[in-house]
Structure formats: structure tokens, C-alpha cells
């Protein structure tokens, strides 16, 4: 998406002192505005639903979070694939950044799903196909992030993480398929508004939710990418300093 702007490119001035830039500043302001509109629409202006009453308001944040958790997962797989193909660090860090943000959104989806389940089904958790595959996605992402966290050389870590990241997508597909077959044997309720059509202000609120949460997702991925980039530089810097020190020692003795 718009992560194209995240890469370090031409020099302009003495350099920023944070991960912010003019683009992300504007993006951040737009995001905050959109989130404000979402609060207004989702919590105040939109009507309560017939069956679920006010619980339906959880949908405006739950559904976009779920969608973006999958988007982040795909972005990680794409980043991993391009990294393996072209050995591009840029894409490796895109994979890393989006995996972490995807894990955050997966957590949001699970928590809001449970909070939605309690008033509508009477329990926090049902072994619904969608909830279960989201939980599995969380575990797969945690595995990926665990590989990112290992103490090893950049090359070793990035390559191993890329294999795991690339396999996220087929894994998610197979998990979803298996969980769906597994659950269709036992009819369970799903989080859809059965029968009732989402329309009018509710539809518009959901649409706003998608836009606001997507903007927030992009903003977070860009900033996380830049943090990862800086970490990379600090690691390399540290290594350079250590080598320089060693050389200096060698000269003295």
C-alpha cells in the first residue's frame, strides 16, 4: 500500500529525530480525524440493532480489525517472498513490521469478539470457525515473531523468519478450511447478524470503521518499519564500532 513512502530515500536536511515525517504527520492527523468520526458514528449516531441492541456497536471495530489482521498476514507473506527472491532488506522489514501490527489487530479481534460473544451468546468463547481460526492465526504470528526475536546474525534470522512468514498464508488457508469442516459438523452460531441486513447509518459506520482502522494500520506499519530500520542501523553501527575498536587494539599492541 502506501508503505512505499517509508523507505529512506534522498537527503533533504539534517534528518528527523524520530520515526515521523511530513507524510506520516499528515497521515496521523487524517487517521485521528477518521477515528474521531468513527467514535461519533459508532457510539452515538448509529442506532441500536433490533436483536443485539447496543452490542452491534462492537461490529464497527471488530470486523475491520479482523480484516486487517489478515491483510497484515498477507503483507508479511509478500514481504518474506520478495526478501527470499531479491534479498531485499527493505521487504524483510516490511514483513516484520506488518507481522507485529497484524498480531496486535488479531489480539483486538479476539478480545472484541469475546466481548461481543458474551452479550449475544452468553459465553465469551464458542468454538466458532471464525473465532478459532483467528486464534490459530494469533499463534502462527506469535511463532513468526518468536523467530524474529532470536539472537542470531541478521542473515540467519531474516532467512528463517522469511520461510516461516511465507508459509503463513498456506497455513492460514488450511487452518481455515479444516476448522470450517470441523465446525460444520456441530451447528454453531456465527457472528453475523442473522437475517437482518446492515444498511443505512449502520452500513456507513462500518464503512467508516474500515477506513479509520485501515489508516491507523498503515500509520503503525510505517512507524514500526522505521523503528525496525533504525534498530538494524544501530546493530550494524554497534558491530562497526566493535570492529574498529578491535582494529585499534591491534595497532597499539
Amino acid at each position, binding site marked *: 500500500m502506501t508503505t512505499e513512502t517509508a523507505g529512506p530515500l534522498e537527503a533533504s536536511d539534517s534528518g528527523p529525530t524520530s520515526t515521523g515525517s511530513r507524510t506520516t504527520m499528515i497521515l496521523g492527523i487524517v487517521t485521528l480525524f477518521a477515528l474521531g468520526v468513527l467514535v461519533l458514528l459508532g457510539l452515538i449516531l448509529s442506532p441500536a440493532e433490533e436483536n443485539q441492541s447496543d452490542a452491534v456497536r462492537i461490529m464497527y471495530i471488530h470486523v475491520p480489525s479482523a480484516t486487517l489482521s489478515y491483510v497484515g498476514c498477507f503483507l508479511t507473506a509478500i514481504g518474506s517472498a520478495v526478501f527470499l527472491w531479491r534479498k531485499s532488506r527493505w521487504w524483510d522489514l516490511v514483513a516484520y513490521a506488518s507481522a507485529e501490527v497484524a498480531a496486535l489487530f488479531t489480539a483486538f479481534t479476539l478480545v472484541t469478539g469475546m466481548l461481543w460473544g458474551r452479550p449475544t451468546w452468553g459465553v465469551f468463547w464458542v468454538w466458532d470457525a471464525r473465532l478459532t481460526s483467528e486464534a490459530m492465526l494469533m499463534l502462527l504470528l506469535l511463532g513468526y515473531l*518468536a523467530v524474529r526475536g532470536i539472537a542470531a546474525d541478521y542473515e*540467519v534470522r531474516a532467512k528463517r523468519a522469511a*520461510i516461516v512468514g511465507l508459509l503463513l498464508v498456506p497455513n492460514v488457508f*488450511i487452518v481455515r478450511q479444516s476448522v470450517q*469442516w470441523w465446525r460444520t*459438523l456441530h451447528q454453531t452460531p456465527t457472528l453475523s447478524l442473522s437475517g437482518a441486513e446492515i444498511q443505512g447509518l449502520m452500513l456507513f459506520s462500518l464503512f467508516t470503521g474500515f477506513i479509520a482502522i485501515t489508516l491507523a494500520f498503515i500509520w503503525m506499519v510505517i512507524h514500526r518499519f522505521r523503528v525496525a530500520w533504525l534498530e538494524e542501523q544501530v546493530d550494524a553501527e554497534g558491530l562497526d564500532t566493535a570492529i574498529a575498536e578491535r582494529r585499534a587494539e591491534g595497532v597499539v599492541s
Partner: protein
Amino acid sequence: MLHDAWLIARKDLKLEIRSRVALNQVVPFALLVLVLFAFALDPDRGLLEKATPGLYWIAVLFSGLLAMQRSFAVEAADGVTDALRLSGLAPAGIFLGKTLSVAVQLLVLEVLLGVGVAVLYGTSITGWLLLLATIVVATAAISTAGTLFGVVAAGLRVRETLLPLLLLPVLAPVLIGSTRAFEAALSGTPSEGWPWVGLMSVFAAVYVVAGIFGFGPLMEES
């Protein structure tokens, strides 16, 4: 490539036969798990028999995990990984060979555990064709994924904890599939089990392809 695979598999299996670690430690562990399930669930109320498919495959996964940990521990121990890389064997061949040796060990475990559940849990075994097909594809799925993630975790200080974290969520569909297929076979409705065999075949195919292409880059560094 296939010749290389055969060489590696033969080397690993010879090593296992000579060291007897699989025989002396992994097999007793697998049987221990079966006994522990009996302690945890009430053996008198037919719970064990009803839950046999699930318990069986959980026991296979956990004891198989030990076998897979070993498959890479023996390589990393004496810098054999470097030797393997220098040997000029095709990475895809190394992957297939490792997978084959893990698969053979899993099959032995599965047969023993099968006898175990039949004897200890009093499960009557029916639907042989589906049972065998399930065992074959599930073993292929577990060993391919296990080998690929085994090498991802190999040589790291955290490998013992990392491999289960990576592998068990990935194998969740295989656990669901093999358990449902076994249930279908044991309850005499094998037609419900075959779609699961298909799903697990797709899984195994994905991991064979991923392993053949992914092993090259992974072997380059470690």
C-alpha cells in the same frame, strides 16, 4: 536428488538404530503418554475408548516432536551441518532424506501406539483402509512440516522451545483431520473421513514443495 535423499535417510536411520535413543527413550515416552491419559480420564466409563482418536494423535504429535528434535540435534552437535553443506548433496535431497527418516520413525511409533490403544483402551479397530490412508498422509504431513520447521529452529539456543511453538499451531489442521478421519473409521462411517485425507494430502504437498525450495536458502547460512 532422490539418491541424496536415500543416502541421508539411510545415515539417519542407521544412527537411530545404533544409538537406540528412539527405542529406549521415545517409545517408552509415547507409551507413558497413553498411560497418563488413562490416569487423567476415568478408564471405567468408556471415556478412553470414545476419545481414542484424539488421544492417539496427541500422543503421536508429542512423541514425534521428540524424534524431530533429535533429528536435528544430531546434526547440529558436531558441526555436521557444515559437513552436509560441503558434501555437495542437493539441499532438496537432504530435506527429503530427513523427512523420510522422520517418517519411518513416526510410522514405527504409530504402529506401537496403535497396538497400545487397542490393548490399553480396549478400542476395537475397524475401517482398516481409512485408518491406513490416514496414517500414511498424516505421517507425511507431520514429517515434512516437522523437518522444515526443525531446520528453522536448528542450531539456535532456543530450539527446544521454538520448535513446538512453530510446529504445533501449523499441525493443528493435521490433528483435526487425522482425529476426525479416525473417528469416522472407528464409528463405521468411513465416507466422512476421506475429505480429511484429501486435506492432509494438500498440506503434505504444500510442505514438500516449501521444503524442496526453502531448504536451499536455509542450508546456505546456519
